[in-house]
């Protein structure tokens, strides 16, 4: 069970809705993923072109919580403007604060992210900042009162998995709010890894939408996240440098 603010979710997978090969595949992938929280971006409508179908308008909004992002913002002020627009739809009160500080690596701008989070908390948003995996920054965000911390595993869309598991572990250990590993997940192994470290959830998009079979990958991610969580709760054995036999060392048949 994942609790963000006052909202409770059964699924620990948060799914992005960008870049699927088709609407049909996207619908099926969302369905099999079991995700209850879906992310969206906020953009101008293409008023002057022929109307394109809109994924959100085809969703049963009673089944999903929307998590709009502030992607495209380079400053705190831009992020706040996008967040206000999203909230004005009347469809959501959560916001993924995403302020990119480097257009090449797409890494977040920590200073603007912190500023935007503070401003949005004052406006009573449910604030989920996408941050770098810096331990002190995560604490500073938590001190502001954000509702979840979303450190990146590696750069957005890079599929490189968890670059710094130690930092992630330290963030998870110190946090009293949910930690959702966001960005950089490439395979089910990465998602399971995040969950085994004790993350409360995983947010991913490209790993599913860009897979050869997005529907199958959505299912794989669901299982990986469940397996990783169970493994974390079960408590893994410690690592050792030498072999420790699993069979009895007495009563050997050999002479």
């Amino acid at each position, binding site marked *: 069970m994942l609790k963000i603010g006052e909202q409770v979710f059964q699924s620990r997978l948060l799914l992005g*809705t960008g870049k699927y090969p088709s609407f049909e595949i996207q619908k099926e992938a969302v369905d099999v993923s079991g995700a209850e929280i879906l992310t969206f971006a906020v953009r*101008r409508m293409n008023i002057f072109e022929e109307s394109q179908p809109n994924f959100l308008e085809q969703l049963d909004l009673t089944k999903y919580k929307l998590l709009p992002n502030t992607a495209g913002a380079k400053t705190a002020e831009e992020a706040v403007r996008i967040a206000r627009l999203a909230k004005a739809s009347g469809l959501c009160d959560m916001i993924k604060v995403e302020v990119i500080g480097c257009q090449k690596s797409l890494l977040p701008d920590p200073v603007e992210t912190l500023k935007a989070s503070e401003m949005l908390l004052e406006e009573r948003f449910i604030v989920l900042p996408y941050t770098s995996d810096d331990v002190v920054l995560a604490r500073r965000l938590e001190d502001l009162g954000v509702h979840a911390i979303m450190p990146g595993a590696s750069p957005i869309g890079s599929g490189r998995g968890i670059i710094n598991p130690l930092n992630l572990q330290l963030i998870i250990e110190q946090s009293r709010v949910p930690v959702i590993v966001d960005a950089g997940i490439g395979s089910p192994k990465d998602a399971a890894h995040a969950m085994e470290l004790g993350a409360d959830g995983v947010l991913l998009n490209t790993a599913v939408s860009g897979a050869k079979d997005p529907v199958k990958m959505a299912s794989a991610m669901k299982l990986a996240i469940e397996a990783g969580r169970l493994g974390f709760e079960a408590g893994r054995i410690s690592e050792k440098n030498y072999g420790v036999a699993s069979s009895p060392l007495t009563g050997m048949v050999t002479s």
Partner: protein
Amino acid sequence: MTVMLNGKEVQIPDHIGSVQDLLTYYELHNRIVVVEVNAEIVLKEHYTSLGLSQGDRIEMIHFVGGG
């Protein structure tokens, strides 16, 4: 009347007097859309009462796929 709509200068017929009229004109009245006029968000309950003026900067925003 000429307005800036989503960054583009457009000529709209004179009978369009409100945000609601504009949404209907572009067949967007049944869509999920958020409207900003001169950088201020317009609440749905003000769609019919808020008049439009020459030179207004209007943004029509929606949700698209994203991560």
